[in-house]
């Protein structure tokens, strides 16, 4: 496998606490890869190391053949990794459209061209009709999609999604799953997601990595992983088996 993202033996230590412990995995181009695990398993820490928010204590992260660990978040984004935030962070007083234009300006210095790109992305994310609203006026499901739209506008090769389904109703989850599936299928975008909502993970991911207390305890196809005893015990709970 020629992975677009190659994580090798990374650890993150916060003083005495080992948040991520020697985790390795690779994400193949054009696939959807999910990281699951209970609260405090180290998912967000791992995510933040890839996005450049935190530098790993040890180990390496390579993206498209280039080492990116310890780089700043903006440098990581310029190399082609877009991200969303678990707690959404829109630019509240800007319009929905202008939020996305900011992302689109990364590879276009002309605002009108960026606006055209923003319109495309807003269509893809079902937000075009709301483009003139202030971002602060949006509902949570819309804000979640705005996060994805803004990241997508930077033309990433890899999209990192931090719990974009959290707080969504099942119908909204399905809508998001449909949008992401379509994006992945039509544009070949590689997606790495951290997710709690198993319904979404099962529907989306080709491969799943399970973290527990900072360590990787299983990796593989989703339906195989959820049957592994270690995963069941640590994460899904015994009642999930049957």
């Amino acid at each position, binding site marked *: 496998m020629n992975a677009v993202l190659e994580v090798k033996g990374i650890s993150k230590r916060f003083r005495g606490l080992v948040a991520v412990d020697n985790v390795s995995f690779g994400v193949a181009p054009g696939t959807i890869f999910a990281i699951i695990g209970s609260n405090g398993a180290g998912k967000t820490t791992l995510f933040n190391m890839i*996005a450049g*928010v935190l530098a790993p204590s040890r180990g390496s992260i390579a993206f498209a053949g280039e080492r990116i660990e310890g780089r*700043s*978040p*903006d440098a990581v*984004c*310029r190399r082609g990794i*877009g*991200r969303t*935030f678990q707690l959404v*962070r*829109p*630019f*509240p*007083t*800007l319009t929905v459209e*202008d939020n996305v*234009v*900011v*992302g689109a*300006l*990364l590879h276009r*210095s002309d*605002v009108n061209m*960026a606006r055209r790109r923003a319109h495309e992305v807003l269509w893809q994310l079902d937000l075009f009709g709301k483009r*003139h609203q202030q971002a602060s006026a949006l509902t949570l499901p819309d804000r979640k999609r705005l996060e994805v739209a*803004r*990241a997508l506008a*930077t033309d990433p090769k890899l999209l990192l999604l931090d719990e974009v389904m959290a707080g969504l109703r099942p119908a909204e989850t399905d809508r998001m799953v449909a949008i992401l599936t379509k994006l992945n299928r039509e544009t070949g975008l590689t997606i790495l997601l951290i997710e709690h909502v198993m319904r979404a993970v099962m529907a989306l991911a080709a491969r799943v990595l399970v973290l527990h207390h900072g360590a990787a305890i299983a990796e593989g196809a989703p339906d195989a992983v959820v049957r592994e005893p270690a995963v069941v015990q640590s994460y899904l709970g015994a009642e999930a088996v049957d």
Partner: protein
Amino acid sequence: MMRWLVEGVPRRSLALLLVLLVALIAAPWLANDYLLTVLITILYFAYTGQAWNVMMGFAGQLSLGHALYVGLGAYATAALYVHFGIGPWLGLPVAIAVAVVCGAIIGFLAFRFGVAGVYFAILTIAFAEFARIGFDHFTWVGGSSGFFLPVANYTRNDLWNLRGSPAMFYYVMLVLTAAAFVLCHALLKSRVGFYWQAIREDEAAARSLGINTFRYKMYAVVISAGMTAVAGVFFAFYYNNLFPEQVFHISRSIELILGPIIGGIGTLFGPIIGAFLLTGLSEFMQELLHALGFDVPGAKQVFYGICLLVVVMVLPDGVWPWLSRKLGLARRQP
């Protein structure tokens, strides 16, 4: 270029601007000397407010020490004029350069070492205070006893040396204010404007979209400082005397930011509306008190305080956002 500038601007806004511009151009024929000096003060605050707004209103970096850049611009050109006979327009690039370098140093220190928010504001005050105390002992430019430009009775307007009648100064300030307005509008419409607003709204989110926030915050400080220094040049040649205790004093910095706060932070019309309201009303009130036979020292400061209170309570976004809604200009107005 012209088409790019007006694209997306509502017709009503353009009409309003045109009316305002024509009224301001015609004003010296209609106004007496007193009214003209008030208008010069208004334009001066509209201009400096616009310059400050680039940093705070657009990029979200609060400066409480903008008197520093006014003072540096004023002292730089005044010194060149008095000591070397170099005129204000040739001194202008030097004034801008000095302010830009100083702004860049403050910006670098703050943004490189993560000084933000309140601490950044305190840093800007500190540098203005350094300058005030430093210039008090800087005898080459007069120290604490002041620095004076030669004043004679000029029979004709000498634009090249900025010596002449109030009407000439008025038009110089009007051109500067109009130029600052157009420049800020152009900045807001371009990539840098979008990036500044993104940084103002949420810096971490801005970084996640690939924005080098250090670089764009530096642009904001440097542009704002350079613009403010131009006002300093005007200040020196209009008032002809500079005292560190006055020029660099924190009350000058505060005075300069009240206009945009009352008019609407981050808006293009805010600094202009704010300057008209504050200076216009406070002069009017002083005249009124005078006419009624009262002589109240400090009435202006009390009035500023009341204005600020009223705006904060009734229109926390400032007067312009409210006014633009009333005039039906709201949506496309940045």
